[in-house]
């Protein structure tokens, strides 16, 4: 197995590990750190695939992902957390071991589902598709079990990481236009959510979702 393929697999494994870590992490600041780490791993693995297949456009994609997900969005989120005074908040998260077990089952399921799809793909890193799918499902699970708005947004962002990762593994990334479009959507989304958090807190005195479940209609 060529070296870059081994590196790709290693990075994919790290990616999944971070996804698990995010599922179990209680402190918001650490969660943002993990998100930045995941973004970094994503960028690196795109670079590795680009090196292995000699596709220069992937370098641009990697740079864009790195800039956005390692620097810009985490910075915005840090500032947001500081201004909302949530920096060292510890979220109530029940039954972490159960959660991790559910995650494990999802993981096996994802690999099972991904196998036939990966066979269709002609890419060198097609084996990592199962990992990408697993991390998408883990992010969704995280969104379901989290109880504050900010952590749900982090779950959403991590889900988007998983999607980009899946795209890289099956088709060497999406068309450039699509990827730029997604990047723009994410950045705009984060800005808007930032504004909304302030409004939500003014309205409900909290970002705890339980408080405004009742007001939803």
């Amino acid at each position, binding site marked *: 197995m060529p070296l870059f393929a081994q590196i790709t697999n290693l990075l994919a494994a790290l990616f999944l590990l971070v996804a698990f870590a995010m599922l179990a992490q209680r402190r918001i600041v650490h969660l943002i750190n993990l998100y930045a780490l995941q973004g970094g791993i994503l960028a690196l693995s795109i670079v590795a695939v680009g090196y292995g297949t000699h596709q220069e456009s992937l370098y641009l994609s990697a740079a864009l992902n790195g800039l956005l997900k390692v620097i810009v969005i985490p910075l915005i989120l840090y500032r947001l957390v500081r201004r909302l005074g949530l920096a060292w908040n510890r979220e109530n998260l029940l039954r972490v071991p159960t959660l991790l077990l559910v995650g494990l089952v999802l993981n096996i*399921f994802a690999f099972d*589902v991904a196998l036939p799809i990966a066979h269709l793909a002609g890419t060198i890193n097609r084996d990592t598709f199962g990992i990408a799918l697993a991390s998408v*499902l883990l992010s969704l699970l995280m969104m*379901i*079990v989290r109880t504050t708005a900010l952590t749900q947004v982090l779950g959403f962002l991590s889900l988007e990481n998983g999607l980009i990762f899946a795209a890289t593994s099956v088709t060497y990334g999406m068309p450039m236009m699509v990827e730029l479009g997604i990047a723009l959507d994410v950045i705009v989304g984060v800005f808007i959510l930032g504004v909304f958090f302030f409004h939500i807190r003014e309205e409900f005195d909290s970002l705890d*979702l339980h408080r405004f*479940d*009742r007001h939803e209609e």
Partner: protein
Amino acid sequence: MITQVGHDPLDIALAVCAMWLVLAAASLALSHRPRALRALFVGGAAGSFLFAAAGLLALFAPATHTTLPLGLPQLAFHLRLDALAAVFAILFGFTALAISLYTAGYLRHEQTARIARMAGQYHLLLAAIGLVLLADDAYVFLIAWETMAWSSYLLIISDDHMVLARRAGLLYLITEHMGAIALMLAFGILQAGTHAGLAGYAFGVMRETTLPPALASVVFALGLFGFGAKAGFLPLHAWLPEAHPVAPSPVSALLSGVLLKLGIYGILLFTLELLHAPLWWWGVLMLVLGLVTALFGAIYSAAQNDMKRLLSYSSIENIGLILAGIGLTVLFQAYHMAALATLALMATLYQTLNHAVFKSLLFLGTGSVLHATGERNLGKLGGLIHRMPWVAALLLIGSFAAAGVPPFNGFVSEWLLLQSFLGATSFPQPYLNMAVPLGAAAVVLVAGLAAYVMVKFYGITFLGQPREAALKNAHDAGFGERIALLLLAGGCLFLGLFPAWTVDLFRPAAAQLIDPGAARDTLEGHVLFCRLHAATHADYGPLIVLGALALVSAALVLILRRLAPAPLRRVAPWNGGHDTRTARMQDTAEGFGQPIRQVFAPFFRMQIQRPAPAETAPVYASRVEDPLWYALYLPITRSVCRMSEWVALLRRRRIAIYLLYAFVTLIILLVLAP
């Protein structure tokens, strides 16, 4: 006959639509100047006149096409003004001319904000109607159709402080939406049948394609439902009697005079133009539906006590006759009997044009009565002929027309319709030969009931003595309103007295839809005569009838003058020569309608409250309700409510639960994917 003046009629019509849009926009800018706002309506009237003129020019020129650089990337707006659209353009332009003039005067005493709102919505509606007639692809047609639906909805609820108006508006909007969905599906199937991609949405491509009979029948059924929601025949009629009374009178006139007719236009467009190879049972279905609708409308309008409800049921009746005419046309066309099909089509179009003119006249007239008295209930009107001579005289013409009395226009179209029913004796199917002429009997019954209804409408409102003291202060209609009523009454007279010229208007449409040769030979005539066909000897000469009527009445007057010995002096019996008749001794609207309610009792859902013999303040009240409302509409509403309750069970009002739904769906799809 009419020379080309150097302008393409389609360009004129388009320019008028653009002008209406500009007027709608201008109403926003002028929202604080009531006089300028009312002047907008005069501008709109000028536009309507031009639109009718464009229709008239287009009748005698070949159909013109154009495309506008708007719309979807591969589907520019296709527009076309052909002979069928031109007939409806004349109908719409003439009616809208009168209604616009009327509205300019009618809104004199309204609040400025309301005039501004109505001016915007009204001109938007005119532009949308114009565009529906000009549309030559499904996309622009549906855009215009939907714009028409919601702008008319806004006009209906423009008295929105009335709860009733909002409820009626909602019923209208829902009905229209269901119809629009059916139309979208129908156009989708038509487009799929052309195998031409996006270009298949153009009507031009659809005209070239012939669908297999099963698919064509599906399209026909969807189209009948969709356009039926607009035209208001039987199961889809419920919005009409609710929306008309609450809408301002000019809006009722536009709804009844023009919007219903666009449903008719759509059905003609679908059955004879886009599907162009009709099956015989389509005709039978429309014939039966039309006759049932006509009877239903006639019976129910006789039982109404509210002026505008009565007129709206009478609209249902007329739409039923028109639909029966279309059914007959399609039936003849399916058996390739071109001459009879042409006759039936001309009767249909004649009836359509007549109804637009006289029903607008009647609705505008009720508007003037409503303005003068503030009363819609027939039981509180009466004797208005002394206070409102203009309105009374002009509405008499409209009532005669609606009653189908010669020499007015309603008679001509009923005569033509009867002739085409009676001509139907040579179908290859013996059952049809026996059954179709029976339809003529139904038409005669409907015509008789219509006359009865008009006697009730006119007699109770204008004749006799005022039933309320307040009616003494009623005033006649203003200048603008009078002009509008005069125009429409003149239209009734023209259409009634010159049928041979009127039929010439329909000849190009019949040539386009059925057969040029048959269109040339059917219904020939000159000013005095109108002859059905060279082979038959059925003639109608309205001027001769008019002359004969005038002679007979003059002779009668002279003879009676001669025979009457002395001026009569009426003295009440047992009264010592004093006159104690009061307004309460006259026949009431309820009383006048009682025989019909009695004869047709099984058709009504009636609640009657009779006073006990010993009661000192006896109250008699009867309420007539629509059985279809209980049999069809309410069960549908209930089942929709029940279904939404089931759906509500899924809603747990927690974001996490919704995310879980998405998650589970994703997992299930992934499991199912291989």
